[in-house]
């Protein structure tokens, strides 16, 4: 068994994260302006208003997206907001339905009355544009096979003009399409809970007002959990997240020290 320098870096990361998870702890967080803005937006929605939640992610990012989605769903359900779930990616379907069902149960919300999951439609741009004209024609049946017209909470929901806003839960660039097609063409308010890796991609849209609010990454989930006062896996993981960040910083510094020393001694 041959151990190389990269293996040592791997082992170090695994050790620090496992120890941090075993130690646990829930640090006090100062919520960022982004999280506060999103919280204010959801809190401002009138009880009974309909919000579309789009699960635009794959199974791969569930450890990061799950806490974000749960934090949002808990806030929305606790406020009495009615949710219409959709998915622009096939894999978001199973996850989205389960997350809505589990979280809805925590707040005694009933399927069909307080929330509904319409499922997946392929080609994201086509799905967004088609729903802008008619949601019922785009989704004649929900994820469970119920006819659109038979679902009580969807009575009167024709297109985006009957929806207060869309919240995209994304690990990639699909939220872009909600802004460029849903917002630009049909004027729907777009907000997003996104994987941290996508935060800088969406910054220009947030700055231009095309995106109303954005919460990003596990840290964002932890901040949102503290804002709504409900604990979740975002907060639980923050110590491990901090330790992992510090570990990467130490590796960067270590790599540079070695680099400059080797350059100084002329060995490189």
């Amino acid at each position, binding site marked *: *068994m041959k151990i190389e320098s990269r*293996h040592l870096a*791997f082992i170090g990361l*695994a050790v620090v*994260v*496992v120890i941090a*998870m*075993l130690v*646990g702890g829930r640090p006090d967080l100062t919520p960022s302006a982004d999280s506060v803005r999103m919280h204010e937006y959801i809190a401002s929605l009138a009880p009974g208003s309909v919000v579309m939640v789009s699960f635009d992610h794959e*199974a*791969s*990012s*569930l*450890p*990061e997206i*799950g806490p974000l989605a749960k934090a949002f769903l808990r806030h929305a359900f606790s406020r009495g907001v009615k949710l219409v779930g959709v998915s622009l990616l*096939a*894999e978001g*379907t*199973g996850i989205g339905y389960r997350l809505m069902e589990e979280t809805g149960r925590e707040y005694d919300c009933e399927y069909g009355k307080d929330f509904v999951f319409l*499922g*997946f*439609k*392929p*080609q994201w*741009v086509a799905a967004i*544009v088609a729903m802008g004209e008619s949601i019922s024609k785009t*989704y*004649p*049946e929900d*994820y469970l096979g119920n006819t659109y017209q038979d679902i009580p909470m969807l009575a009167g929901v024709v297109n985006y003009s009957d929806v207060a806003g869309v919240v995209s839960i994304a690990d990639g660039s699909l939220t872009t399409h909600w*802004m*460029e*097609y849903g*917002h*630009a*063409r049909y004027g729907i308010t777009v907000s997003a809970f996104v*994987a*941290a*890796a*996508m*935060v*800088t*991609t969406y910054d*220009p849209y947030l*700055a*231009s*007002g*095309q995106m109303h609010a954005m919460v*990003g*990454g*596990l*840290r964002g989930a932890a901040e949102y959990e503290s804002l709504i006062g409900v604990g979740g*896996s975002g907060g*639980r*993981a923050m110590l*491990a*997240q901090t330790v*992992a*960040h510090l570990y990467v910083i130490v590796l960067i510094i270590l790599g540079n020290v070695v680099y400059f020393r080797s350059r100084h001694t002329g060995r490189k």
Partner: protein
Amino acid sequence: MDFGTLIAGILTLAIFTFLYRDNPIYRAAESLLIGVSIGYVLVITWTNTLMDLLFHPLFRRGDWPLVIPLLLGAMMFGRFYRRTGWLSRFPMAVLIGSGAGVAIPAMLDARTLRQISATVTPLFAGSAWADVSTIIVLAGVITTLSYFYFSREHRGALGFSSKTGTYFLMLFFGTTFGYTVMSRMSTFIGRVEFLLTDFLRLTG
């Protein structure tokens, strides 16, 4: 521990074996993942799209104009044979044409004009610090764009501008790297949480 958690734990560890090096256990798990993922997309596409948008309306309600997209879809399979390959160009034409048609106004309006408009905002509208930020954003956009302008040699004023743009780009890439590290670590932490809590039951 339920059987599902046991399987999920074993498969998680099988994938992690790749960290040592590529090996048969990892490859077997990876092959299973690929097959199952494609199978999942197949089922969801069939049940969530083809059934309720095509087959139910066509065969249950007699919505006969849907025969055209059905035929177009079937023509897509022409790709598998050399002699019928050209047939798939028609459904491809629908996909490419639709995408291009809706993209023109979206790209012009939402991606270009609104971003330009958000860059050029009035000064003295808020605090002095807000004005500084506005000027920095304007300078950042112009200099970064000049970095990507390759029709002239980057010398003189253009050279200075493109070099400044490099620094803005580095700030962007650096920040993005930081956030990407956060994302990847979050995913790993999620898996560690599963292994410690559900699989090994070491934490509550």
